């Protein structure tokens, strides 16, 4: 009984932390001034958020389900690998479109070397 309630507390804390990280990431997506700063919020905070929720789910399903449950970590690993790639491609697309940054920074100043 004691171990069960401890498991409940740990899973609840992980789930709440993950949801709070996702909310902070989306808030950064809404509030930041230009596209290059807007890329930070979802690509970092949302990765931590969904990773924390998946760790909570793996813990709960391992202790309450029929056996060890590790296929949540497949989603977690996939997201951790693919999110930097997607952010990099989006940043390259934004730079290619010559989007201006905040505080007068412009993409025309310095060209990328190998293009």
């Amino acid at each position: 009984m004691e171990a069960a309630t401890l498991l409940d507390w740990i899973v609840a804390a992980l789930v709440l932390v993950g949801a709070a990280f996702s909310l902070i990431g989306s808030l950064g997506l809404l509030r930041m001034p230009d596209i290059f700063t807007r890329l930070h919020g979802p690509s970092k905070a949302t990765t931590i958020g969904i990773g924390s929720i998946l760790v909570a789910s793996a813990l709960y399903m391992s202790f309450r389900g029929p056996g060890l449950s590790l296929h949540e970590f497949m989603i977690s690993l996939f997201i951790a690998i693919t999110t930097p790639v997607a952010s990099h491609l989006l940043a390259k697309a934004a730079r290619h479109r010559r989007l201006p940054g905040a505080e007068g920074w412009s993409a025309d100043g310095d060209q990328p070397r190998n293009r």
Partner: protein
Amino acid sequence: MLSHAIDIALALLGVSLALALVRLMRGPDVTDRILALDTLYVNSAAMLVLYGLRLGADRYYEAALLIAMLGFTTTVVLSKFLTRGDVIE
């Protein structure tokens, strides 16, 4: 106690989905909209995992994995199209 925590977390994720939807509608450039769409994909995958945890069911992970993979493919293809003007060269 755990079900209340998962309900609160689902509400927080719903608010974050609404914020990303506001950016999707408002976004000044198309890259902002792609970024908002990517955030919507990842947050809805997290929401599906949470829903499976709430029900104690084991079959929602496949749907979450599919949504994550489709979101990554969509973001890569749209960014590639914006950069090169073509998806497969």
